[in-house]
């Protein structure tokens, strides 16, 4: 950081020296920052635009990664930014996916309307589950959120006539966009990528905003937030509902991509996967969980083609990550960037 003058005696000289030097640095960095951010966005969008050229298999994999990236990033809003360890995040992802497919299969409603409906339904579900869950903290919160998600899963298993039970519900007809059907892998991919970019953009803005600062304050010191006059429970509910809605975007895109949904999507294991993705990628970072999703799913695809015990590899990497890289993949990227320094 900026050196401070050691004593009071030489203050006039060094003070003016620093005063003259400092603004130059500040202006330079302040001017460069938006440029760098803009360049990063352009690179990301260009990179995503080129993905369909790599063939159907890779496109499908990246598409799946982006869907689960949305899911994991939305969970990190709770875990990493608000300090709420939810173990039932699959509920919102799953409810949204079910909404899209059920509306499409049973009522013939377009997937686009289904997408909106799915997000709305997951927002409502999150508001209800959140209303009850945020009354407790810590392990009870974790158990309660998990129990609610399991409750929804058992509904999806038993209500066969609507959900198809464990066999799942197929026969969903993908909608089309400007005359191009989503049955086309590339079109599908671009829709998913657009959703991913939106969630990424929104979360980045949210975290830097007044509302985001309240979430971070709750994570840092709930008691002090109350003493400052914040109705903490209300803001926890807002965070929970927002995170549920964003997970709903992921779930709806999952449905559009797979045209199929089964009760696995509401299983607690999926909530657990999302937590692993968040931790692998970097808790309390916006983009980190997206990398976590990429690492997790690539491991799954690569290792599972050799052995059924792919979870063993994921587990080992997860343990090593927790012990040696508590800030995850993105934490490593950050510290390397800081070391290369300006």
């Amino acid at each position: 950081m900026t050196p401070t003058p050691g004593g009071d005696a030489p203050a006039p000289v060094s003070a003016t020296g620093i005063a003259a030097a400092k603004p130059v640095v500040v202006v330079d960095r302040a001017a460069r920052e938006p440029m760098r951010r803009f360049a990063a966005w352009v690179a990301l969008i260009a990179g995503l635009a080129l993905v369909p050229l790599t063939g159907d298999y890779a496109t499908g994999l990246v598409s799946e990664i982006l869907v689960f990236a949305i899911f994991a990033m939305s969970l990190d809003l709770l875990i990493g930014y608000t300090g709420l360890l939810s173990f039932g995040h699959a509920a919102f992802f799953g409810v949204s996916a079910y909404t899209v497919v059920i509306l499409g299969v049973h009522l013939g409603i377009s997937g686009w309307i289904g997408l909106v409906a799915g997000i709305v339904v997951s927002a409502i579900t999150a508001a209800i589950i959140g209303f009850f869950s945020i009354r407790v903290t810590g392990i009870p919160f974790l158990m309660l959120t998990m129990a609610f998600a399991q409750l929804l899963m058992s509904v999806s298993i038993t209500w066969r006539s609507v959900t198809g039970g464990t066999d799942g519900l197929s026969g969903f007809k993908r909608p089309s966009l400007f005359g191009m059907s989503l049955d086309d892998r590339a079109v599908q991919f671009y829709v998913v990528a657009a959703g991913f970019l939106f969630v990424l953009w929104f979360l980045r803005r949210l975290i830097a905003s007044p509302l985001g600062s309240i979430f971070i304050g709750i994570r840092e010191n709930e008691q002090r937030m109350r003493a400052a006059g914040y109705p903490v429970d209300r803001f926890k509910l807002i965070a929970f509902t927002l995170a549920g809605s964003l997970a709903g975007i992921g779930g709806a895109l999952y449905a559009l991509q797979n045209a199929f949904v089964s009760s696995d999507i509401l299983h607690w294991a999926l909530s657990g996967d999302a937590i692993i993705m968040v931790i692998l990628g970097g808790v309390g970072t916006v983009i980190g969980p997206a990398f976590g999703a990429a690492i997790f799913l690539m491991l799954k695809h690569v290792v599972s083609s050799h052995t059924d015990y792919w979870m063993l590899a994921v587990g080992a990497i997860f343990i090593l990550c927790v012990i040696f890289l508590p800030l995850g993949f993105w934490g490593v990227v950050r510290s390397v960037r800081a070391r290369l320094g300006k």
Partner: protein
Amino acid sequence: MSADRPPATLLETEKLFKSFGNLVVTKNIDLVVREGERHALIGPNGAGKTSLVHQVAGQLRPTSGRVLLKGVDITGESPEKRSQMGIGRTFQKNNLFRALSVRENVRLALQAKRAGWYRCIQPTSSDRRLLDEADAILGRVRLTEGLDRPVSALSYGEQRQLEVALALASEPAVLLLDEPTSGMSSAETDEMIDLVRSLPRSLGVLMIEHDMKVVFSLADTITVLYYGEVLASGPPEAIRDNPQVRNVYLGLGQQEGTTRARAAP
């Protein structure tokens, strides 16, 4: 209006009683803080001072009795509601947003009473006015340098100052200071005395303090607690001369009371 009318009552406790099982921590405490008053709460460790402040600010619920703010019963209100209604407090142990910058700590506390928290797209850095206000409050507690440092980089004394800044940021009518000078050097203590003196006169201050120098240079009312009960309450001279108080607390002279307080965390 006559000029000699007594200043309005801001805070009042009525027969405030709190027990944990058989342990009674506050026993029917009646206490009044008026506008402009500097009210010191003293007493040996375990006398129930912090429990009393917790009950006034809402972190603890009394077993019986009432807390009134400007005549309104707030006994059943949550800490956040009481803060909104005008009770600001500091904590005995620094209770800050440790990972956040000094400026962000105060900005966040200020934001609580402002509209616009629901904005989720514009960055906080775009609200220059709020940041300027935060800097002004930090200036009042004499924190002017390195405001972008995280709290964890501050010295202990600076963290105490920030603790007061956070309480001021909630724009209280009544300010509760829980041992504001605990663990401070003598120079830092003098600064804290100046700081409390410089607070607006409209504010009522209730202050737990062990350092008798601080108490006698600031307070215009002193309440002595002893095992959860009010032993004596009145102007400093009366408390100083009260034989009972001298016996149980001031006992062997000022130094003893001060050193004991310093030794305690």
